[in-house]
């Protein structure tokens, strides 16, 4: 057996988060490796051929593959090695070093070591069973991402006439895409009383194509033996429970699901890293370091972002901080950020490391409900350190607050707290 190679930083995932993390870590002087389970870099961007990516990061509207290409080029220019089609089987921490067991075609099962890890595993789609859809199990039920792969990568249509359940962004994008490619989209049904996707997608993907959006409706039953033949749609009440007597049957041959994304954190869980029940991603400090020293999280593995630009941003921060950690770790002093579930879907990061050199923190937050004229305030004791007025705040849109921590003295008795008030 040859000697096990040790890197400063190993990044898991070569999607937009992982590429950015690898790039930033290398720029900061680390010896970096990016590991990717698929055969090409770019993550889900490879199949997102619509535009709108990169407005913040590159000040340009790019398609998904174009955006990915930019980062792949940047990573290649720094000669950062990437191991493709390589799958992580397990990770162990031994004396400050992470030992990874991996598998691929060329090396078989092999080991690598790293001083710091960046988890950039992205997220997966919730399935029909995870939202408890019932009825039969014919062919023709796909998550929006899978349908997108069929259409954009394989050039195949998954259905002729479909309904879409859930108004998440990929669902909306697929409503337009399927229409353009020759399928009929009969409607988008959303159990919530407000859309889940971005307002711009509601306009550009549904309204422009006369695709109806039915709020407070859900699929209660799937009908069909070989292929989907019809679905039963019901109205739902405020707690999203179907109202009996409102059932109607819609004939169709496909169901596309866009019912939410879940960060993929099986690796983090195997390391006993604590997850936030709200984000389903790891609990992190302002440097995106998780509850395990030396393990960083970014992108959609940390929390599901609305824009890829923010995914890259988080990757760059995690990469930079992982690189710093690899060469010079310090004892953290974690103070939690107080928030509440009543007003916020989630707040990231969940901790501030007061002993970190990094005194600029970005706090990402999402409102639980659509609200008008609210003020989001971050305070430390009585001291208000940030406030922002929102004429309207919506769950699909992630908001961020930039804080300068250098003049704030945070400690156990004086924690940061984020609150939402009227005004």
């Amino acid at each position, binding site marked *: 057996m040859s000697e096990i190679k040790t890197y400063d930083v190993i990044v898991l995932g070569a999607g937009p988060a992982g590429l950015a993390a690898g790039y930033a870590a290398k720029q900061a002087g680390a010896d970096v490796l990016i590991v990717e389970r698929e055969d090409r870099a770019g993550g889900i961007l490879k199949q997102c051929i619509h535009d709108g990516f990169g407005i913040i990061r590159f000040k340009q509207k790019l398609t998904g593959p174009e955006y990915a290409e930019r980062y792949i080029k940047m990573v290649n220019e720094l000669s950062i090695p990437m191991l493709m089609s390589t799958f992580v089987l397990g990770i162990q921490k031994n004396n400050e070093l992470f030992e990874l067991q991996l598998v691929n*075609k060329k090396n078989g099962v092999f080991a690598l070591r790293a001083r710091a890890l960046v988890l950039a595993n992205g997220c997966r789609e919730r399935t029909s*069973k995870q939202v408890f859809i*019932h009825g039969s*199990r014919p062919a023709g039920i796909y998550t929006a991402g899978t349908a997108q792969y069929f259409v954009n990568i394989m050039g195949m249509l998954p259905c002729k006439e479909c309904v879409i359940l859930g108004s998440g962004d990929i669902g909306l994008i697929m409503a337009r895409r399927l229409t353009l*490619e020759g399928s009929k989209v009969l409607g988008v049904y959303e159990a919530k009383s407000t859309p889940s996707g971005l307002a711009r997608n509601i306009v550009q993907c549904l309204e422009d194509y006369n695709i109806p959006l039915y709020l407070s409706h859900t699929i209660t039953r799937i009908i069909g033996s070989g292929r989907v033949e019809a679905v039963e749609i019901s109205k739902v009440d405020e707690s999203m429970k179907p109202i009996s007597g409102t059932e109607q049957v819609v004939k169709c*041959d496909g169901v596309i699901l866009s019912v939410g994304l879940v960060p993929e954190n*099986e690796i983090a869980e195997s390391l006993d890293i604590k997850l936030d029940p709200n984000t389903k991603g790891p609990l992190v400090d302002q440097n995106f370091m998780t509850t395990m020293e030396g393990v960083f999280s970014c992108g959609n593995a940390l929390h599901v972002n609305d824009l890829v630009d923010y995914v890259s941003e988080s990757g760059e921060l995690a990469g930079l901080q992982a690189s710093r950690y690899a060469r010079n770790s310090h004892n953290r002093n974690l103070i939690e950020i107080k928030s509440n579930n009543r007003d916020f879907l989630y707040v990231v990061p969940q901790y501030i490391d007061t002993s970190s050199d990094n005194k600029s923190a970005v706090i990402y937050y999402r409102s639980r409900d659509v609200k008008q004229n609210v003020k989001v305030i971050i305070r430390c004791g009585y001291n208000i350190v940030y406030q922002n007025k929102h004429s309207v705040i919506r769950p699909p849109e992630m908001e961020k607050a930039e804080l300068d921590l250098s003049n704030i003295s945070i400690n156990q008795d004086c924690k940061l707290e984020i609150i939402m008030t009227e005004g």
Partner: protein
Amino acid sequence: MSKQLKKIEAELRKNISNSIECREWRNSIVLEGKVESWDTVTAAGKKAANRGYKGVVNKLTVKGLEIPQINSPSFTDTTLQGKKVDVLVIGGGIIGCSIARELSKWDISVLLVEKEEDLAMHASSRNDGMIHPGIEPKPGSKKAYFNIKGNEMYTKIAQELDVPMRRSGSLVVYDSYWVKFIYPYLKIRGNKNGIKDFRLLSRAEAKAREQWISDSVSGGILFNTTAVLSPYKLTIAYAENAMMNGAEISLNTIVLGMKKHKNDITSVLTNRGEIFPRIVINAAGVYSDKIAEMAEDNFFTIHPRKGQVLLLDKKKGSMLTSVIGKLSITNVKGTTKGGGIVRTIEDNILVGPDSYEQPYREDYSTSRENIENLMKKHFEILPILKPSDVITYFAGIRAATYEEDFIIEASEYVPNLIHAAGIQSPGLASAPAIAEEIERLTCKVLSQYKQINKKQSWNPIRKGIPELHKMTPEERNKYIKQRPDYGVIVCRCEEISKGEIIDAIKSPIPCVTIDGIKRRVRAGLGRCQGGFCLPNVVKLIQNEAGIKAIEITKKGNASNLLTGETKTDSIAKEVKK
């Protein structure tokens, strides 16, 4: 009309429906008439059962209830036209396949026909994968006999067929003190049935064995012989071993009728031609009564009893070491099954099945009410389980007769027909023993026609598709060196490699459906439910089996995954031309 018949009829009319008429046919009781509901149909059947007749033939119909036709292959051809075989096995579930394998020991020709695109498409892939210890069946029943015998045979069978099995034992828990008084009764039953290894556990012992069980549990009974395995992997393994030893298997083949001369079946009509068998074995599951009817030997009726099942994420697998059931008065006495919590051989947690009568033999739809009830009932016993752990759920249908026992016998009226019918739980546990008994019966009948001998070359050993994720790194590397595709992970949730999926596609009984691949190697069975790997599996089927993407199906028979090309793609092709 006999006295007994009159009595039963009067009882049925008084208590169930006055439109029921009874008559005797051979030594069975036949119920006829039109009633109001399906519950009435089954209630009448149950009432008439075990009253001195061989079987209940329940011909009651429900006003306005339409029962769909049997799902059939969509084509006909002449592949099997005129084919002569010694034995024709009808049904490619665990029973049919295990019979075919045992018969392949002999120098006789064996053909198994299955109406679906794959084996194990019905009850054999829709159960909890449990090899029961044998406490539930009534002492003296066929169920009790074959369950105990089958359970014992499994250690050898699983090894020969290379099907992973774990004898994890099962724990029946209870939460009230009175169950202790039932234990002596259970002990007598267990001893009568011949269960070797079971005992009462105190609360502390139960808790030591299953640390996550609810604090309300006050004790349990441990059955050490209980095992778990993958029922569909086992079915496929039996079929492959049968094929290796010369048996033939014809999928997409449905039996449509039979021709008889005097009492004997002379030929069996299928969508693929007329077959001329010496002996016919009825292992047709929920349709075994219909097959019997074609042979004019319908002395029993199947009433499809449905059950729904939940499957939970592997992450929770380690919260359980074996199988947990809960004891209540109903399942001490009755035949209804409450289901349990099972740690499957693949380390998922399986919950269920529940059990209820309904008229449809192939309706595998699930319903909110049943699934919610399963969660409510069972998550109480293992409170660490949460609805968010559920990755999928499904339904299965038990082929129950009104006598609630297996029918394993040579027909009394059709000399060349043998029944392996009415097989419901514990059918999987009993299968190896049932197969041996059917083998014995078949040889007995067949030897009247010809001299039969054991094959010199019979090989009981079958090798399965390697499961790389279970191997040590060294072992795994050996495989990857030989076939680099074993090092490419396609299904990320279950860690299944490209090599394993190709093995499934090219297995002895080739498999080109998405569900078939799932059953063989688990690609797509994990928490993302194929969201990521499905398109890659489609591409592999396309490349390895040479089937166009548009023709690939989920489970055969018009369950095509895709409906056509995109506009962009068809325009691009035009331009290329």
